[in-house]
């Protein structure tokens, strides 16, 4: 199966290890992976801020970059939701681009959604000792309707205890420009999220959207709490490597 990666601007620039983990995991499960170099940001920051013309420009470039793709996989629930839900509406009045946007939207999957629902992988050979809790990002959970898939993958990691995050349906307060525009409110929201995370006594926080994780991690660090933060793909791949080195040392 041929898979094209949409790595998102955030992962590309700040969290390349997430993209790398996705590449390796997909390859392990038989995918041929490519990365179209002409890709840009999905346009979500512009779209959510009301700059729809600029969002359309980004969308067109992304559609062009992936025009030959069979499947498009992204390690971000919110970018995948942006493409699936808002690309078709962005071009609702544009005869030329409407269909292209829809066709593209139909090919886009969030990483864990693709692993579980398309590749039918819900268990990986991985081990990682620790107590983890999972943050459901709003756009992935509500916009894309994906919530059980990443948890299934996580639960397959041996040695990892996965505990429920109380009030998991609450937003972490990121919200793109909201985090700076309405900084005071955003801070209260992330503080509440941190409180809930600490209540689980987990030492690992996992999520499927680096934007939210960046927000929570930034606050955890500032407050000095030693909770490790992982993208789900990153933790899975870390676990796979540990499992393999255990296997080889056992021989």
């Amino acid at each position, binding site marked *: 199966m041929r898979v094209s990666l949409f790595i998102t601007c955030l992962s590309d620039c700040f969290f390349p290890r997430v993209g790398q983990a996705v590449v390796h995991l997909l390859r392990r499960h038989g995918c041929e992976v490519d990365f179209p170099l002409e890709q840009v940001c999905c346009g979500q920051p512009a779209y959510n801020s009301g700059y729809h013309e*600029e969002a359309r420009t980004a969308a067109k470039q992304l559609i062009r970059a992936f025009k030959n793709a069979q499947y498009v996989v992204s390690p971000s629930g919110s970018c995948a939701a942006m493409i699936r839900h808002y690309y078709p509406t962005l071009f609702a009045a544009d005869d030329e681009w409407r269909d292209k946007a829809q066709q593209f939207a139909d090919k886009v999957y969030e990483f864990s959604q693709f692993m579980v629902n398309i590749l039918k992988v819900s268990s990986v050979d991985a081990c990682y000792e620790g107590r983890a809790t999972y943050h459901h990002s709003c756009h992935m959970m509500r916009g894309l309707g994906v919530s059980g898939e990443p948890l299934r993958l996580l639960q397959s990691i041996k040695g990892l205890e996965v505990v429920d995050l109380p009030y998991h349906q609450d937003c972490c307060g990121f919200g793109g420009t909201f985090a700076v525009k309405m900084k005071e409110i955003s801070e209260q929201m992330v503080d509440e999220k941190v409180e809930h995370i600490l209540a689980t006594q987990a030492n690992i926080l996992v999520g499927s959207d680096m934007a939210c994780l960046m927000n929570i991690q930034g606050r955890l660090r500032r407050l000095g709490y030693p909770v490790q933060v992982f993208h789900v793909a990153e933790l899975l791949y870390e676990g796979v490597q540990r499992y393999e080195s255990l296997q080889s040392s056992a021989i």
Partner: protein
Amino acid sequence: MSLSNPLPFKQRVEQGLNDPFLRQSLKNAQARFREGKQRAAQILGNLEEWRTRAEAIRHHTIEHLDYYLDQFATNVENNGGTVFFAETEQEAVDYLIRLAKAKQAKTVIKSKSMVSEETHVNKRLEEIGVEAIESDLGEYIIQLAKEMPSHIIAPAIHKNRRQIAQLFAEVAGKELPEDTSALTRFARHQLRDKFLNADIGISGCNFAVAETGSIVLVSNEGNARLTTTLPKTHVVMMGMERIVPTWEDLDAVLSLLPRSATGQKITSYVTALTGPRRENDQDGPEEMHVIIVDNGRSNALGTEYQSILHCIRCGACLNVCPVYRHIGGHAYGGVYTGPVGAVLTPILEGFDEWEELPYASSLCGACTETCPVKIPLHDMLIDLRRDEVDEKRSPGVERFIFRLFGTAMNNPALYRLGLKMAKHLLKPFADDEGFLNKGPGPLKAWTEERDFPAPAKESFREWWQRAGRYGGDPDGR
């Protein structure tokens, strides 16, 4: 213009955030309401089907609003009532004032009505020397405190028992115990006389049934019954979108209202009124006047915002909104608070006083997910932002940044260059662990309370070109 809270938005937010009591009580209330709603949804079993049906009913009604308003008005008149269509706040209140003068009214008793709040009825009545008394416990409390409602269904949600006891003590002229039943008893006692002596009763209207010209009121206190039956004249103030075509339709929306609001199956009192007192009736008003208020609602008709008129004012969106939880209802400044207020107020009144409201959301979508009539609230907030951008209301710096963004998106080489530059620009600010705790420019706001990651030494793109496409490094990266 009917700005109700004179402070600017930022200060209203600050007030809310700096009120620990308010935040605690909103937190408790949200927890209670959410739990209730969840339980109610479980009992109902097929909530999604109910939502779909209710949405269809609301959609059909609003699409044919002219027709049903006409049918409703004709039936009210056939029942002996009077109907007045008010296009503006001014027209609505003027009608009421004329009526009050004609009846030589001294006191008016009211049962919760958001429209009368919207049109500032109490103040206008006061100006002509008519005393208006709120009979709903919550409304009575905030009337004494000279405040506005801060929640759609629980208007005094922001007040605690001690504050209420103090307010009541001023009326009583003596100390009162801080005990719920004692306080309720006191209020009831106070209101009893007012009910008996009021010249006019003013109520809202949760739903108006077009096929019979009836109005339906939902309450937990029974005060709506007294308001609408004791005084000789009953005035209904309703938004023009409150219509349902038939009793069967009413059943669907009425089943969802209390379940979505508080988790109740049904409220303690559901009152349906069809016209004033008839010949052999024991009680009831001699006259019934229905004021149907537009006041900006038709701005939404025929636009992409039309479905905001589907709203049944259940408050469910407030009960799940994390922003509302932290800042409280007064921060929204208008009569309607929370997510629905953030959408509705600028539509009713324009952006001039309400520019910030569409941004008072992280777009988490909890409101949309919970709305029993499926109003896409958070999508509307995005569209309102777009309208503001189109009207050039957004800050100049922001416009500049997004123009740059657009240019870079059109030109992948430029985009790549931008990412590279960001890396070099931010490098000097990073600590040993690769985080910034004092960011330059637009990052400053972020790094006041949170660390920010520095760009990676090697971006994904660079890695891919170096090693990724060939299978990655031997160490797995």
